[in-house]
């Protein structure tokens, strides 16, 4: 009997073809890309186990577990807050390995783990006009004084729950925002972002890995 090999594909694979959209401008106001090849695990501390969970996360990921809406970077993993006593771990996908490999034991009886790797798409948005564009979609105040690098939020965009956090600034000094969306809503939200970005000129750059900077 033939063996099947399943190839994971993103629901955004057609949408993210590199090209320019919207206004024909010298410099695109928005730079848009999809981040691929990540593993994503939701970690929920059990009753009375927050401190033990935070300690296990610190030892396992080398990053401080966020107790409030923050995104904390470890060596290869970003931990970002998603609710009371729960947070996500985002790290590069290891081929032929399961995301929960090695995690079960250190978190046993302290936290519940839920692999969400294939349930979310990660969209990265930057460019000099990114804040003006996001102001149309989000009710958050994204001004640098209240939403600096490393700030995170669980919020809604276009009636769909998203996790949003600010990454280190792009080479041109523009802020970079990561928006984690449900795969089933990804195409819809992607096009909402594209429509909101059109007036500023959009450059869609090729999908890239977590630790890779977007480039055309």
């Amino acid at each position, binding site marked *: 009997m033939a063996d099947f090999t399943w190839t994971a594909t993103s629901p955004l694979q057609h949408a993210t073809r590199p090209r320019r959209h919207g206004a024909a401008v010298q410099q695109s106001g928005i730079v848009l890309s999809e981040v691929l090849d990540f593993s994503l695990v939701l970690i*929920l*501390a*059990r*009753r*009375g*186990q*927050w401190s033990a*969970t935070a300690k296990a996360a610190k030892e396992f990921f080398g990053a401080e577990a966020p*107790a*409030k*809406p923050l995104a904390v970077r470890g060596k290869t993993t970003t931990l970002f807050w*998603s*609710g*009371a*006593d*729960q947070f996500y771990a985002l790290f590069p996908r290891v081929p032929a390995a399961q995301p929960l490999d090695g995690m079960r034991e250190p978190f046993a009886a302290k936290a519940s783990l839920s692999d969400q790797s294939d349930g979310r798409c990660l969209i990265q948005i930057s460019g000099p006009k990114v804040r003006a564009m996001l102001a149309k979609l989000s*009710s958050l105040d994204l001004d640098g004084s209240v939403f600096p690098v490393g700030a995170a*939020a*669980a*919020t*809604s965009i276009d*009636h769909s*729950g998203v996790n949003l956090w600010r990454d280190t600034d792009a080479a041109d000094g523009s802020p970079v925002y990561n928006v984690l969306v449900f795969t089933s809503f990804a195409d819809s939200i992607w096009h909402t972002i594209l429509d909101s970005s059109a007036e500023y000129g959009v450059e869609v750059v090729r999908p890239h890995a977590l630790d890779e900077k977007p480039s055309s």
Partner: protein
Amino acid sequence: MRIACPFCGERENGEFTYLGDAKPQRPAMVALEVAGGAAGEAEAFYDYVYLRDNVAGEMDEYWYHGGGCRSWLRLTRNTATHEITSVEAAPGTGASSSPASTAGTIS
């Protein structure tokens, strides 16, 4: 109307869902006892399920932050003015060791 979620900060009310009055407490009896229960038990249960005050003024309410951190909140709101005078996490939120305590808040 905006609600200051103790976990997320101030958010628009579109992120929240309204449950209703936080005052009614479930009578301390199991449903099976209703039929043959002591006098007044069925009435107490009826009150708990169906009867609500129609308050014009301050009211304790449960709200759910479904469009955000997915926490239940208990807040005091003036139904006539929408003024919110207190917001706290509902008992048992997050990993708080006691269901009666509230989990961490933004400092």
